């Protein structure tokens, strides 16, 4: 699209992010909320909405929602209730969804994001608790729709931003920040492909000088952060093209097709949305006391933003490193623990971002399961920093050996494998003399001013010491010897 035309409009985006809470049981009954069970196996009379059954709230759902609220600096509503959202759809057995309308558990707050334009706090409207619906399967080869109610009653929190985002880049940043936070809080696995984290985007455009929002279009069905961004970009372009042609934008729900990269209007039989919310009479109100809130606050883990700041101020590592290390909590915690055992923080950062993360990726494990405990990695780093083991030898030979020798210290393993560097002048000098004697022609070249030739001598010294010569000392001795000739 012509950037001049694109520039005539301001883009307005709001996100509704649903996070499936990783509780053991459902929100209002004791069915398992495990993903991936055979269809219609985790269903009892409450999930199925049988007449006369009564819901009872899972306490952990409230605690998880409060954790998210605290992480986003929301106001926690002290007396919160559930409402019924009424609509008919086959995967909603009761004919209403239990959700929160008038008194959501969290209000306000924000998500802090970083984009190429800098840092910005995206204000939240609310976070509320609700139950998920079941799953409808519409197969072209089937004359019926198939209904699986395993998911019905799975606990969700819905995080609703204000319409404050101005680009797909910001939308992507908000979503990845939310995913990072729910994972740190251990309240949701954040998996978008499996649908445990879902995002709908409300998109509208308005002329640059306008303050009046355009008609908003809701886009659904995006199963990755990248697809959320693609969907928004394509929807924005569609709306601009329509408006430029003089057509009005219709408020509607559109679905994103990842194959074509375009949004399309949804043709469902439910055309009239009037949810007639009212307080649910079956559930009692939830009162959040000071004591309860304090107990939840006390159990809050460190958050990615806090750790990012701390890593920079306390360990003086670059922004880039801090960003990589705080991407996941297990890695951040491993880094922090290792830094408690050594002062070489930048070296720790390099080791964790390099060999440690490669191991984690290769074996698909978390840093909590990593076989080398932080103290031992710190010891290895100390050996390298003290010049007792070269970095190359440490990374290629000593590091893998540590996995196999959980009961030995890094120094013991290094000794056992004879990997300690030789910084002893008395043992290095004979090797240096030997090398110089063997290459008289090269010595002549050095004397004629070809200083670069020293690299060749170093190579020989390293080879003959089997890689154990301390390069710094060897270089000094070698230079001294050559200059004396």
């Amino acid at each position, binding site marked *: 699209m012509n950037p001049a035309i694109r520039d005539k409009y301001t883009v307005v985006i709001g996100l509704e992010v649903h996070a499936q809470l990783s*509780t*053991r*049981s459902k929100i209002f*009954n*004791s*069915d*398992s909320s495990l993903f991936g069970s*055979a*269809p*219609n*196996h*985790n*269903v*009892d*009379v409450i999930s*199925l909405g049988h007449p006369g059954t009564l819901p*009872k*709230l*899972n*306490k*952990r*759902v*409230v605690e998880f929602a409060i954790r998210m609220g605290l992480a986003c600096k929301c106001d926690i509503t002290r*007396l919160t*209730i559930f409402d019924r959202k*009424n609509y*008919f*759809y*086959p995967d909603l057995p009761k004919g209403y969804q239990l959700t929160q309308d008038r*008194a959501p558990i969290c209000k306000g707050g924000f998500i802090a994001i970083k984009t190429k334009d800098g840092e910005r706090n995206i204000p939240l409207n609310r976070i509320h608790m609700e139950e998920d619906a079941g799953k*409808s*399967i*519409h197969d072209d080869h*089937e*004359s*019926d*729709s*198939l*209904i*699986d*109610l395993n998911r019905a009653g799975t606990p969700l929190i819905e995080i609703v931003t204000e319409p404050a985002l101005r680009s797909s880049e910001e939308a992507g940043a908000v979503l990845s920040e939310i995913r990072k936070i729910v994972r740190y809080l251990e309240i949701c696995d954040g998996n978008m492909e499996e649908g445990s984290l879902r995002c709908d985007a409300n998109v509208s455009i308005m002329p640059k000088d306008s303050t009046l929002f355009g008609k908003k279009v809701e886009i659904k069905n995006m199963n990755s952060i990248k697809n959320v961004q693609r969907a928004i970009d394509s929807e924005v372009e569609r709306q601009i093209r329509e408006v430029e042609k003089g057509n009005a934008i219709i408020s509607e729900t559109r679905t994103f097709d990842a194959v074509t990269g375009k949004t399309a209007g949804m*043709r*469902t*039989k439910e055309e*009239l949305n*009037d949810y*007639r919310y009212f*307080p649910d*009479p079956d*559930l*009692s*109100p*939830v*009162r959040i006391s000071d004591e309860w809130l304090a107990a939840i606050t006390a159990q809050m883990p460190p958050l990615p933003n806090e750790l990012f700041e701390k890593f920079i101020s306390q360990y003086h590592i670059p922004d880039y490193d801090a960003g990589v290390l705080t991407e996941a909590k297990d890695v951040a915690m491993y880094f922090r623990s290792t830094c408690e055992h050594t002062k070489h923080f930048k070296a720790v950062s390099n080791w964790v971002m390099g060999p440690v993360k490669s191991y984690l990726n290769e074996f698909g494990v978390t840093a909590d399961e990593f076989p080398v405990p932080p103290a031992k990695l710190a010891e290895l780093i100390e050996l390298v920093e003290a010049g007792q083991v070269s970095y190359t030898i440490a990374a290629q030979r000593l590091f893998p050996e540590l996995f196999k020798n959980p009961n030995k210290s890094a120094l013991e393993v290094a000794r056992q494998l004879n990997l300690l560097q030789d910084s002893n002048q008395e043992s290095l000098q004979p090797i240096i003399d030997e090398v110089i004697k063997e290459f008289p022609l090269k010595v002549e070249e050095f004397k004629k001013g070809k200083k670069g030739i020293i690299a060749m001598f170093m190579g020989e010294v390293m080879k003959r010491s089997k890689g154990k010569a301390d390069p710094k000392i060897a270089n000094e001795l070698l230079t001294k010897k050559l200059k004396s000739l």
Partner: protein
Amino acid sequence: MKIDRAHLDKIAHLARLEFDEKDAEKMMQDMTAIVDWVEKLKEVNTDGVEPLTTMSYETNMFREDEVKDHLSHERALLNAPKKDNDYFRVPKVIE
């Protein structure tokens, strides 16, 4: 408040109910009477009164997060008008 034909049709659609044409007039009258009767409550001064959301004084009726035995798959599907071995079957909802 007068319930007119548009109201009646909307309410019928939302409730997925059909009605006999010849009852329409009677239903509009009845519903108007009901709404008028409830509107009487608006005469009470409720300044400074929090909306009532529950009839009970109970709060914080929680369950612990525990999985318990539930219905078997076979019994869950037992009363379904249409089903197969795995799923409830319903008329197709998407074209």
